[in-house]
């Protein structure tokens, strides 16, 4: 065949579903493209958080005692709970995708609601933690007092943390800067995700996904799981530094 510009008829694909965009040859191509595009977007997200992970690694090595002390002011109960909440929401989202794939509208709506509720719970717990930091003067820049580490107060029912020398105590501000930057960016991703969840919920109730056009849900699923993965790393890095001390 010596005629490249002559057409190849897409006879194999017969009728196209209504939601297939005109420039795609087939539904499979559209689907693959969408999820590939989503993955590439997630790569940019990896690198976005990557910058902060690099900073974390540098300063953790430099100011290890400050990182330990800062980490010990975080509530391990709330942190663990939140990890559980987020993992569960990831699970409900995965179930949502499954329901959408198998065209179970009721299941999809339920999964989305559960995911939304769990996401809200996560943010709620996070805001409790943030509030606690604010009360304790642990918010870098705005309300920070290194002396709380030089003269640590004993929590009720617990022994006081060992005091830090002033110079190291001052470096806890670096820890909290990273803590707020990393969890803040993570929370921002959660908030964006919640907005999308509400949108999808409305669409699902309207029955927009009943025809099998579920690329949006699948790709959102990828996004949501990615947010979960970020937290899976943030949790041990921020909460679990030398808890045995």
């Amino acid at each position, binding site marked *: *065949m*010596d*005629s*490249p*510009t*002559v*057409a*190849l*008829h*897409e006879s194999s694909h017969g009728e196209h579903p209504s939601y297939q*965009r*005109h*420039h*795609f*040859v087939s539904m499979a*191509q559209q689907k*693959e*493209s969408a999820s*590939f*595009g989503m993955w*590439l*977007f997630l*790569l*940019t*997200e990896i*690198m*976005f*958080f*990557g*910058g*902060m992970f*690099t*900073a974390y690694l*540098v*300063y953790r090595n*430099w*100011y290890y005692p400050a990182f330990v002390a800062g980490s010990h002011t975080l509530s391990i109960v709330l942190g663990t709970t939140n990890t559980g909440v987020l993992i569960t929401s990831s699970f409900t989202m995965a179930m949502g995708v499954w329901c959408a794939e198998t065209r179970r509208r009721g299941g999809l709506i339920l999964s989305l609601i559960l995911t939304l509720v769990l996401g809200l719970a996560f943010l709620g717990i996070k805001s409790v933690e943030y509030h606690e930091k604010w009360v304790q003067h642990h918010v*870098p*820049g*705005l309300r920070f007092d290194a002396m709380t580490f030089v003269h640590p107060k004993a929590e009720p029912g617990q022994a006081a943390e060992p005091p830090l020398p002033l110079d190291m105590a*001052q*470096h806890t*501000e*670096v820890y*909290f*800067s*990273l803590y*707020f*930057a990393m969890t803040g*960016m993570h929370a921002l991703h959660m908030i964006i995700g919640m907005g999308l969840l509400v949108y999808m919920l409305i669409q699902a109730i309207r029955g927009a996904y009943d025809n099998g056009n579920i690329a949006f849900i699948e790709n959102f699923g990828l996004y949501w799981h990615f947010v979960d993965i970020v937290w899976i790393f943030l949790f041990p890095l921020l909460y679990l530094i030398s808890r045995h001390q």
Partner: protein
Amino acid sequence: MSSIVSLPDQSTARIPKRNYLTNENGILSWLLTGDHKRIAILYLISITFFFFIGGALAGLIRLELLTPQSDLMAADTYNKVFSMHGIVMIFLFLVPSVPATLGNFLIPIMVGAKDLAFPKINLLSWYLYMIGGCLTLWAMITGGVDTGWTFTTPLSTHYVNTNVVTTGLAIFIAGFASIFTGLNFIVTIHRMRAPGMTWFKLPLFVWSNYAASILMVLGTPVLAIALVLVVLERTIGIGVFDPTKGGDPLLFQHLFWFYSHPAVYIMILPGMGVISEVISTFSRKRVFGYSAVAFSSVAIAVFGFFVWEHHMFIMGVSNYSTLVFSLLTMLVAVPSAIKIFNWAFTLYKGSITFETPMLYAFGFMGLFTIGGLTGVFLGSSGTDIHLTETYFIVAHFHFVMVGGMLMAFLAGIHFWWPKLTGRMYPEKISQLAAVVTFIGFNFTFFPQFLLGMLGMPRRYAAYPPEFQVLNVFSTAGATILGVGYLLPILYLIWSLKYGKVAGNNPWQATGLEWQIQSPPLTENFIEIPVVTQDAYDYEWLERQKEREVTQVG
């Protein structure tokens, strides 16, 4: 002088009635378009606008440097002018220049697709770019920013009170425009190729844009987070880069250059793609060592991530990592050398004509060779000590970015102008413009190499009087260069109405884009083509023409 231009009979030729420009009318049909070709045109208009803003600022810089004293403007005004020149030129012109205009227009056609994979995201990319651009202008009008385009901490976070936050956000937003463009290209090139279009049948323009897209997607977010941290440090005072709080200001530079060095390749790689197309077409020959050129693009992209620290050799990084990064820098120079020689040998036993795009391509080869080789001066850590932070650096990256990229951009614009608009640009005056640009460029930037050797630091509003003569040469050259850049915009606009009708394939080139009408239909291809020929297969093209003749006959 003979040429390969084969235009249709101008008395009967018409621009096809139905094409992407005439498909819909009204301003909204442009602002809400999903058509990659229209978005390319939107991008073309906007980057030209920003190019001339950046160019005007460059003119101010050269005027100020005419005399040793800072007499045209005060030092802080000068600082704002060169900062804005850098920011506008890099983030609003060079990064999107070839990919967002020519790439947007051509990549889907070259791979045989009807559009990019995500038309709406493509449009979103343009809007993000415009928001970023307008914010930058807003920052400039309301007081400017004087950190330089590098936003070095702690200068940017604590020691200036100009619009760092606005500009930082603007670049953050414009960065996402670049990410979305790159993402779209990668998906399109992977997923939307026409039947038979294997990787090694792709034009080299596609390869080089693919490589650049990888850098955009993986590099830009690191710049984004670095800027976010700067903004947070400036507004609420967190302490990630602040040395008084225990932060390391060098960390910012690590993150910044992790993007901003690969950004150099984001800027130059698509330009190299243009050169491959142009040189092949005007020497009627397959690019010498197609796969070497293709792989060298990818090699540049991959190695590009491993060399960023050469911007920081004298800044107190560890000597040992300097060794590593210097070595890797030497390695990244090799693929560029390969490309230059492969292009030169593409001419060997070709059948060469000298239309404007080819002249620009020759200009590119000369200037990029100089720019690339002087890069080695800076990559070798010892000589870097003497030459860095001087005008040598300025000359080096202008040779690469302006002498290289801008030449390639102009080559590409002229080369594909018939495809974009359906009309030819006027040949004689554009050849003149190419020559004027080349001469003006050398006049402007070559003296700066000497200034750098002599040790004149960059970003100086006032300088010791002994440097004046070379600065006067440079400013004089800049006026010639300015003329060289004004000419194309004038005659290209003129040609929109009065240019000759170009026909489908005025250059007798082989790419898929030349086998369809000019300007193309909105859907590019009536039927998706099946590709059997290699890229740059001029014998295939001849057979095609013969067949058409016999069929018509």
